[in-house]
């Protein structure tokens, strides 16, 4: 049963779990649609749209997660600890990792909002931080509470980790097998001749 006095406590934990799942989906979609990639069966703009929308949704859940953690009076978490890493009196390392993840996500939001002003190269370089924010957020979740370490939520953690690793592996393999840009034209030009030769055999 949820008593009124424990609503913030459980709301913070539940929104944290959902935020991890959503951040996983954001990372997976981001990896899939990066560098002209696309999701199977979907046009690229749809993949980009889903990536952006899930990012906003994840940020919403992260915001509720943080606000309910601060609002819950059972554990004292100062507002400064939400922004400045490793300054919390309660579990400073694990909450500090959450703060680092939050700061990285904030940097991603700001640079994405200012993307047209800061230029694509700067935006892309900052956007690489997303690959850092996800494992940091997951470590925060695993260390700060025991929820993700057992039962169905452990299975969820395993699925999230496997999804990110599998998507990253798929993209890295595809990148390794791709023909370098400098060799694309000669390869394409020689392709019809190869087909003709194959037809003569």
């Amino acid at each position, binding site marked *: *049963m*949820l*008593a009124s*006095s*424990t609503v913030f*406590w*459980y*709301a913070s*934990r*539940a*929104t944290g*779990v*959902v935020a991890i*799942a*959503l951040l996983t989906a954001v990372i997976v979609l981001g990896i899939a649609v990066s560098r002209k990639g696309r999701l199977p069966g979907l046009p690229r703009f*749809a993949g980009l*749209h*889903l990536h952006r*929308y*899930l990012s906003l*949704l994840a940020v919403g*859940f992260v915001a509720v997660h943080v606000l309910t953690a601060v609002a819950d*009076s*059972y*554990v*004292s978490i100062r507002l400064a600890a939400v922004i400045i890493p490793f300054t919390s*009196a*309660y579990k400073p390392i694990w909450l500090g990792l959450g703060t680092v993840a939050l700061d990285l996500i904030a940097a991603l939001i700001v640079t994405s909002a200012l993307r047209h002003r800061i230029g694509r190269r700067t935006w892309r370089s900052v956007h690489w931080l997303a690959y850092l924010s996800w494992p940091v957020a997951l470590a925060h979740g695993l260390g700060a*509470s*025991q*929820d993700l*370490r*057992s*039962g*169905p*939520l452990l299975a969820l953690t395993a699925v999230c980790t496997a999804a990110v690793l599998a998507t990253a592996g798929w993209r890295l393999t595809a990148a390794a097998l791709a023909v370098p840009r400098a060799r694309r034209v000669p390869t394409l030009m020689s392709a019809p001749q190869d087909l003709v030769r194959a037809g003569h055999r």
Partner: protein
Amino acid sequence: MRAATVSMTAASLVAAGAIAVALPSGISHHATATRSTQSSGVSGSTSGTSRSLSRPAATPTASSGTSQATSGGS
């Protein structure tokens, strides 16, 4: 596309609600144990003893401890 985003939002909210309800009962031995541990650990450092005693207890153990402390105080 709009249907997909609406359904994802709804699914996320439902999941959060389901987890919040399941944490105290089903998933929750760890959650309650952690919370009672946090109570003792944090109250010492933040002088929140009276607050933690006045809160409804999350576990039977914490409940009995609270009632004893309250009756002793009164």
